[in-house]
């Protein structure tokens, strides 16, 4: 998402005594808010119908695994793709640069749903027309839906993150690169030792937001029959006709995921102090 909040890094907070760390939590309005949240939570737990939950736990667990697997793999692969996409747009030769810019524009400019559709029903159905492919060892995988979901999510993440990386690569202060060159580093070494780590660090603050967006994009794979967490929850809703309880569970899980993610990335960020 936004490729700008690359400003002030979060510095590691000095360790405070426990009391000092607790103090901000004990401010009156925070106590009120915590109380409200607790009350809402108790009301949700006691007043609503959760009898379905135990029966569906295994399925929800499985859905969560699918969601996490898709998320982690597509973010990892998409990030790996985003690096060259971003770098090429900053320094690459003109044709490569246009290619990368075009790719990012098209993917970011069209809905993910559509891309999923074209890749699964278009590309996928195309494969099915060739007897050679149907006969090969690949077919058991190609007839599944998840490879297409993974591919589409990866391309999408690569395009959005590629845009972020473009900003990050362009934003590494020239002087740091010149210093490396002035010491006789070859181009690849400059990239590997200075440019790349600095750009990644600059991109970190927005990464959490990007991954959360990706998390929220994964449910679309249900349209190509991949049963992720969201699809399981949908199924629960259809089976139980409970309108809200399953959704609340979904929100709780997503909140936990994005909260953990934010914390992990802040921690990562704090491990390397930035120069600015």
């Amino acid at each position, binding site marked *: 998402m936004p490729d700008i909040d690359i400003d002030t890094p979060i510095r590691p907070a000095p360790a405070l005594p426990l009391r000092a760390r607790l103090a901000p939590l004990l401010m009156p309005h925070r106590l009120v808010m915590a109380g409200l949240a607790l009350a809402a939570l108790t009301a949700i737990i006691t007043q609503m119908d959760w009898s379905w939950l135990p029966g569906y736990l295994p399925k929800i667990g499985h859905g969560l695994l699918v969601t996490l697997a898709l998320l982690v793999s597509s973010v990892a692969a998409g990030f790996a793709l985003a690096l060259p996409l971003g770098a090429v747009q900053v320094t690459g030769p003109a044709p490569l640069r246009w290619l990368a810019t075009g790719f990012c524009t098209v993917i970011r400019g069209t809905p993910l749903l559509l891309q999923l559709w074209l890749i699964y029903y278009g590309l996928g159905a195309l494969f099915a027309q060739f007897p050679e492919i149907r006969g090969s060892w690949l077919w058991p995988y190609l007839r599944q839906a998840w490879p297409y979901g993974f591919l589409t999510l990866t391309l999408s993440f690569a395009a959005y993150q590629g845009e972020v990386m473009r900003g990050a690569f362009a934003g590494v*202060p020239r002087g740091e690169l*010149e210093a490396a060159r*002035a010491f*006789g580093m*070859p181009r690849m070494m400059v990239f590997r*030792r200075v440019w790349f780590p600095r750009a990644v*660090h600059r991109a970190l603050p927005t990464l959490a937001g990007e991954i959360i967006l990706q998390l929220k994009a994964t449910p679309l794979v249900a349209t190509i029959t991949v049963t992720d967490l969201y699809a399981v929850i949908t199924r629960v809703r259809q089976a139980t006709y409970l309108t809200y309880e399953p959704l609340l569970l979904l929100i709780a899980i997503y909140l936990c995921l994005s909260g953990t993610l934010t914390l992990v990335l802040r921690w990562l960020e704090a491990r*390397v102090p*930035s120069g*600015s």
Partner: protein
Amino acid sequence: MNDATPAVEIRDLHKHFGRLEVLKGISLTARPGDVVAVIGGSGSGKSTMLRCINMLETPSAGEIAIHGEAYAMRPTRDGGLEPADRRQLQRIRAQLGMVFQNFNLWPHRTVLGNVIEVPVQVLGMPRDEAVARARQVLDRVGLAEKEDAYPAHLSGGQQQRCAIARVLAVEPLAMLFDEPTSALDPELVGEVLNVIRDLAAEKRTMILVTHEMGFARDVASHVVYLKDGRIEEQGPPEQIFGDPRSPHLQQFIRSIA
């Protein structure tokens, strides 16, 4: 190689930025052990000249040789030059140490990491050896106890000394300084100038762009006055500061005093 081989030699260097001619034929020789101070008004081309020496800017015309080895250049389509041999370029650059005006330390590495980076990665020195050498050098500039700090946590003067240590660790044939003190406050200026003075006393080859005239007079063996992309006057410091010939230089020295 004998002592007569110049450490840095520039012959008729020209540099254009688009239509603007910034350097208009500069020739300069620094023998081993020379300390050359480059002075001149803002925009006169001092930084550009310095950056040409290690090809951070490619000259439009002219020749530059480091310790007798000239950069291999080839003409570009638009009438300029470009380095022809990337390996040679890297080899020569590794022999020059540049200390930038704003330090340009690598913020993602500690002080020690910054200092061993080039020896380990470029010169292929074993890590242990590089660390031992880095510690010596850091000790020399008075940064020994800061080796695990990141640049962002250093004061300006400490950053500057770290930048110098980074250069010293590669034992360069010549060191290039671009206004090493202009970003510092007056008390830190003294600190940094002292380190450079020590280096000069060790007879290291240095070319330094500076605005500190008193300092230039003190440490330089040779002073070069640039004006509008030309060397208007050069000579030993006593002559440049004591008995300037060119009216421009006279005025420059007056305006600064």
